[in-house]
């Protein structure tokens, strides 16, 4: 970046829509029509992307690491499930919000524990919270159904109009719309002064405090926001699959999420989305190719990604579009890779 640009200009520049972003969302919309036989995996990608975005909000923007993000996912999932089973909130979108709020409350309460320590203790605390919730859900099996999962979830049509179908079309479009709306919100937030202050905190908390940023309050706020996102992702999961079992809290889920961000990169919101696409597609390809040994191949790919380095791969992938853009004299199409390293 040029040193003589002002911060305001910088923020404004960042928040402008690059063409690569538009292409990304156009592709997402196109997927509805092109991959009409793969709605289920697309749905998974959509909620996984949202879930990864929620981790990116704290990891990529505020530098909080978490190994227990499934806690919020799980709370969202069970809330949505319980609301549907007991018919408390029938309408899915309303239930989605309630589930998100439930996760938000948990996020707010636990944020005070999480922001206290260094990275290592953050890992432990977040992991602990997720394990705790999992055990609670197991213990109170009269409410949650225990290991067997919540039984008898049936989700009403969205807004009373669109019923979830066997092919998963409605479910996918629903997830995609929610993802997009929440993405816009996240994009607005991270490009606001609030978002910039988070970056300052991530880079150097002491200096951030010295220039007058209320570090702890900001961290609590973003952690809570992230919990809301994760809760929504969990609720989407439950609403599209009509399932909620202990697996929603599992360590694997939190760990997978970190893998998604390893693949996609952090600190530019798209990392979670791209990571989710790549991760799920790889998983699907390998597991239908070799149902027994697919985990080996996934592992191998991850090792390769880390070895080669994401930056170098992007450079390879983005070479053509960049060249293309340079030739037609547009502004730099760097929104995808800009700031991707952190």
């Amino acid at each position, binding site marked *: 970046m040029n040193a003589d640009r002002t911060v305001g200009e910088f923020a404004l520049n960042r928040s402008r829509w690059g063409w690569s972003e538009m292409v990304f969302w156009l592709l997402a919309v196109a997927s509805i029509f092109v991959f009409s036989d793969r709605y*289920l*995996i697309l749905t998974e990608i959509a909620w996984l992307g949202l879930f990864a975005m929620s981790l990116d909000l704290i990891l990529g923007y505020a530098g909080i690491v978490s190994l227990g993000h499934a806690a919020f996912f799980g709370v969202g999932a069970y809330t949505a499930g319980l609301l549907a089973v007991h018919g408390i909130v029938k309408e899915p979108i309303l239930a989605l919000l309630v589930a998100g709020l439930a996760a938000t409350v948990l996020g707010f309460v636990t944020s005070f524990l999480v922001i206290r320590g260094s990275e290592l203790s953050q890992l432990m605390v977040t992991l602990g919270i997720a394990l705790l919730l999992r055990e609670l859900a*197991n213990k109170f099996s009269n409410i949650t159904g225990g290991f067997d*999962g919540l039984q008898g979830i049936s989700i009403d049509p969205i807004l009373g109009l669109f019923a979830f179908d*066997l092919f998963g079309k409605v479910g996918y479009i629903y997830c995609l719309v929610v993802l997009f709306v929440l993405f816009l919100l996240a994009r607005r937030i991270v490009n606001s002064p609030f978002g910039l202050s988070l970056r300052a905190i991530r880079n150097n908390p002491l200096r951030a405090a010295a220039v007058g940023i209320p570090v702890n309050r900001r961290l609590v706020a973003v952690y809570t926001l992230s919990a809301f996102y994760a809760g929504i992702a969990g609720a989407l999961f439950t609403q599209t*699959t*009509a399932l909620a079992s202990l*697996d929603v809290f599992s360590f694997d889920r939190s760990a997978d999420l970190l893998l998604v961000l390893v693949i996609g990169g952090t600190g530019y919101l798209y990392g979670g989305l791209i990571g989710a696409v790549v991760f799920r597609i790889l998983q699907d390809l390998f597991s239908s190719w070799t149902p027994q040994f697919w985990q080996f191949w996934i592992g191998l790919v991850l090792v390769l990604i880390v070895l080669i380095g994401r930056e170098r791969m992007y450079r390879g992938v983005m070479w053509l579009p960049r060249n293309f853009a340079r030739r037609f004299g547009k502004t730099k199409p760097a929104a995808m890779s800009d700031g991707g390293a952190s």
Partner: protein
Amino acid sequence: MSIRTKTLLQVAAGAALAGTFAFTAAQAQETVKIGLIVPMTGGQASTGKQIDNAVKLYMQQHGDTVAGKKIEVILKDDAAVPDNTKRLAQELIVNDKVNIIAGFGVTPAAFAAAPLATQAKVPEVVMAAGTSVITERSPYIVRTSFTLAQSSTIIGDWAVKNGIKKVATLTSDYAPGNDALQFFKEHFTAGGGQIVEEVKVPLSNPDFAPFLQRMKDAKPDAMFVFVPAGQGGNFMKQYAERGLDKSGIKVIGPGDVMDDDLLNGMGDSALGAVTAHMYSAAHPSQLNKDFVAAYKKAYNQRPGFMAVGGYDGIHLVYEALKKTGGKADGDSLIAAMKGMKWESPRGPISIDPETRDIVQNIYVRKVEKKDGELYNIEFATFEAVKDPGKTKK
């Protein structure tokens, strides 16, 4: 053009059209697809592998065509996570147009697929999961494995008759474990037995040591154990480490803990354990001897009860197709499966026409050494046991 020629043309066109339809329909039905969803990775992987092996073995022995249809099995790994199961089942039904879904390593997986079976009218052949209520979740579910109630009630009665007065129980905390506990308790206490200690262990926590200490302190005559297939080896190892084998506390239970798959590796501490179950690799019938020999030859290991569930599951599909003459729609298949009777490696079995659940012999067995290997040797047979979980209602 006269009216006559016009009608003739119409008829011809109609016939041609009908012919095309018939042709495409016939083409679509050339193959019958079976979506086999089992855990091939994760903690329950041994279940999936046994079922997969058994299905492959059966198809090698019996060919892959039946009633003029080619059978195609599509194997999918759900790692025993129900949301995977559901997605895979849905994709198999919607994209691959499978005629049957089968497998289901654990109860939650079978539950997750049940609404899809109902909605899409696709038979769901449960080859492993053993909770009673599974078959009630959809009119398209058929089971070829067993229910925990079948074996647990019988071991309960057996314990009472054989002078066991005080029992401590250790069961995995999920639906099948709770079934096992409930049915055992009912029969055991009705006969005058006493439960002195009741411990539920988490399914995903294979460390039994702290629970075993409590068992030891309770000083029962025997301990009733249910852990799912695959965890028995670990359990017996810790049982021996804690010295419970020397304290005279016998292991009894449904046969899952003494899975043939792992039995031989458990060591002498397993000797004398009495379990009730539907299959032992030592079942003394010619059919079973051939089955065990063929399985050992193909995979270099002993088949366990999960393998038999898979073997009978695919047999049921074959026989149902023979009966319908190749008609592979859900309703015809289910109708054909109801009441089906055959001789399995485990003994004579049938599908209950009312509940679509399996009716089979339950054997009481004791672990003994035979030719230097550990086997569950059957010494008492209870014939044609229906699932008590349903007959009670």
